[in-house]
């Protein structure tokens, strides 16, 4: 009998006969069982060198850099965007003045779906959920006075990401900043759009082809730029478990690698610039284990399946964001506590950058005050708590290492299934990840409704009256003003030039030439986001999703 077994029988069981454990399910949010105690016996087959290794070295479980936050703390990157470009520009400047170290741009729904502000489908949505962008004129206002050579910018945009990248490069050119100096990230992860976030123009194959164009183009022209941020965030927010988030995200990543290899690119020429984005939810240890498992699984695939040689190709660098879906409208100040704990998990998981949600986001876009609290939460973590003093401080924890192995195992099982279906594009066509997520979301909601998962302030510790909070209002006039400006601006263009560019773009799309060079010329001649998206619609056709609920 092992010592652990002896303890279980002699001490634990005799104790719980008199004092039973709480009648709650002892399992993680993903449903993995959690034992009362973890000891070296859980790690009997486990090898330090094989499973952990050292930070900055394969398989990168403990972190992608040798010094981690001792060298530089994570990038504090608050997602911001609303109203007209100048409104967001002011918020950017405010955040930089408050000590934020990178920008992150939220676009409005029309920009995300390929419509100009003056399109009928944009009505009611202009500048609501993010900044309104139709032409390069808007982009110039958005980044006015922000030195693009010094600040890195992340842009959450997908089916129109190629257009945003073209506009960003054009603005850099106008600022006199060489593309080789530009750092930043386009989200540009179309596969997870079909799986979860649901912003699209054309079907998966042409969508992935444009993503591949961007990977190819930036690998030589904008070498410090991350052309895609392979995102689990939206998968999780759509209701998946942590295991599904990890598995589908890595499977998406593998699909992009395959697409780039099929283009004839060398794996080490583009893999170092692939980046990731994960959600950080409430289950503290599971989230930390998820990031550690993500690094190990990715490193193994890159080395073993794709024969990457450069360590940089095997490194999974990730942005993180606290879980919007965990925030509650009831007792909104409680969200500050949730965000702080989730942010701590992101840091202990070794994230490269972090966005902390604001407590008021279940009501509206955040106020300046709420954003400041969220940013200060990160600064407190980095500078007051001591968690950034050593690399992977939880490494070697019997519990955490067991959990990391379990996450890895469950992920590999999903990836095997997806491989067997012929890869992620086929799996999406079959509705597989969509269905898995819808089922998990429904199960979670039912547990929540039955009170099996406690949500403080919602199904337990409920208060009838809570103090209202201030929230951000976006005046209706903003929309009308922006529409009017876009109309006038579009009327002032040399329309023959615009049309010539759009025709050249359509040809490049049809002839399978890389779209980026012509896109850059097109936006410089002020072809609009909506007009360019129309070309995509005409050439590639519209995507229609299978309806699964």
């Amino acid at each position, binding site marked *: 009998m092992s010592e652990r077994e002896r303890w279980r029988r002699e001490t634990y069981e005799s104790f719980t006969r008199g004092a039973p454990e709480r009648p709650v399910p002892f399992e993680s949010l993903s449903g993995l069982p959690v034992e009362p105690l973890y000891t070296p016996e859980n790690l009997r087959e486990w090898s330090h060198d094989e499973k952990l290794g050292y930070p900055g070295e394969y398989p990168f479980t403990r972190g992608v850099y040798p010094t981690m936050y001792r060298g530089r703390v994570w990038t504090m990157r608050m997602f911001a965007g609303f109203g007209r470009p100048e409104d967001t520009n002011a918020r950017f400047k405010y955040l930089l003045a408050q000590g934020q170290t990178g920008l992150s741009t939220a676009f409005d729904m029309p920009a995300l779906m390929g419509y100009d502000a003056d399109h009928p*489908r944009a009505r*009611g*949505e202009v500048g609501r959920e993010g900044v309104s962008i139709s032409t390069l004129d808007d982009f110039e206002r958005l980044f006015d006075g922000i030195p693009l050579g010094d600040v890195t910018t992340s842009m959450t945009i997908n089916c129109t990401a190629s257009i945003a990248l073209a506009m960003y490069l054009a603005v850099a050119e106008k600022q006199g900043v060489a593309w080789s100096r530009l750092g930043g990230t386009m989200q540009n992860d179309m596969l997870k759009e079909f799986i979860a976030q649901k912003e699209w123009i054309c079907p998966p194959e042409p969508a992935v082809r444009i993503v591949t164009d961007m990977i190819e183009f930036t690998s030589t022209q904008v070498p410090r730029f991350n052309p895609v941020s392979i995102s689990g965030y939206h998968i999780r927010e759509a209701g998946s478990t942590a295991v599904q988030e990890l598995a589908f995200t890595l499977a998406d990543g593998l699909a992009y690698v395959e697409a780039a290899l099929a283009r004839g690119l060398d794996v080490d020429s583009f893999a170092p610039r692939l980046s990731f984005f994960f959600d950080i939810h409430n289950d503290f240890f599971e989230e930390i284990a998820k990031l550690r498992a993500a690094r190990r699984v990715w490193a193994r695939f890159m080395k073993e399946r794709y024969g990457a040689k450069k360590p940089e190709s095997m490194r999974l660098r990730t942005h993180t964001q606290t879980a919007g879906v965990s925030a509650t409208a009831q007792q909104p100040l409680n969200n500050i506590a949730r965000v702080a704990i989730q942010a701590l998990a992101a840091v202990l998981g070794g994230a490269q950058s972090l966005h902390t949600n604001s407590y008021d986001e279940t009501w509206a876009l955040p106020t300046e005050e709420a954003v400041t609290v969220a940013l200060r939460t990160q600064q407190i973590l980095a500078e007051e708590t001591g968690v950034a003093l050593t690399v992977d401080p939880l490494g070697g924890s019997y519990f955490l290492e067991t959990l990391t192995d379990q996450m890895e195992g469950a992920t590999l099982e999903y990836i095997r299934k997806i491989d067997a279906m012929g890869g992620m594009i086929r799996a999406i066509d079959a509705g597989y990840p969509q269905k898995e997520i819808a089922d998990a979301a429904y199960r979670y909601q039912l547990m929540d409704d039955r009170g099996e998962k406690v949500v403080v302030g919602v199904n337990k510790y409920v208060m009838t009256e809570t103090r209202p909070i201030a929230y951000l209002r976006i005046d209706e006039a903003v929309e009308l003003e922006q529409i009017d400006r876009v109309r006038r601006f579009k009327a002032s263009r040399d329309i023959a030039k615009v049309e010539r560019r759009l025709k050249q773009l359509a040809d490049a799309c049809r002839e399978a030439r890389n779209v980026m060079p012509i896109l850059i010329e097109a936006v410089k001649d002020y072809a609009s986001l909506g007009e360019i998206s129309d070309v995509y619609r005409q050439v590639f056709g519209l995507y229609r999703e299978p309806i699964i609920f």
Partner: protein
Amino acid sequence: MTADRTVRVVVAKPGLDGHDRGAKIVARSLRDAGFEVIYTGLHQTPEQIVATAVQEDADAIGLSVLSGAHNYLFTRVLELLREKDAADIVVFGGGIIPPEDVTALKAMGVKEIFTPGASTQEIVRFVREHIRAAA
């Protein structure tokens, strides 16, 4: 009004917003509670939603909006229902909608608005209590 047939609800995602976790959960909860549910899928215009509701002879429309465009989209659906002489179709909904807007939308004729944290039981109870199948 007699409940000859099952209450029929159109669950719809108006506008460009793709956040469909809530809409799908609501659609499934209502279906599991015994209602007839038609889920429109994403990116519907108010015109498309009203046309579906009229065509399907729906008793209610549940709108889910998380993009902040609720004022425009809910109002437009109400307007179109009146134009089509279908104002008896009950409109309810949910999303990221601040309290002030909830009050205003209800004053305009939206029957109920559910915000983050609402349970599926609450929503099912609402439909059971407030929506009757047209004879």
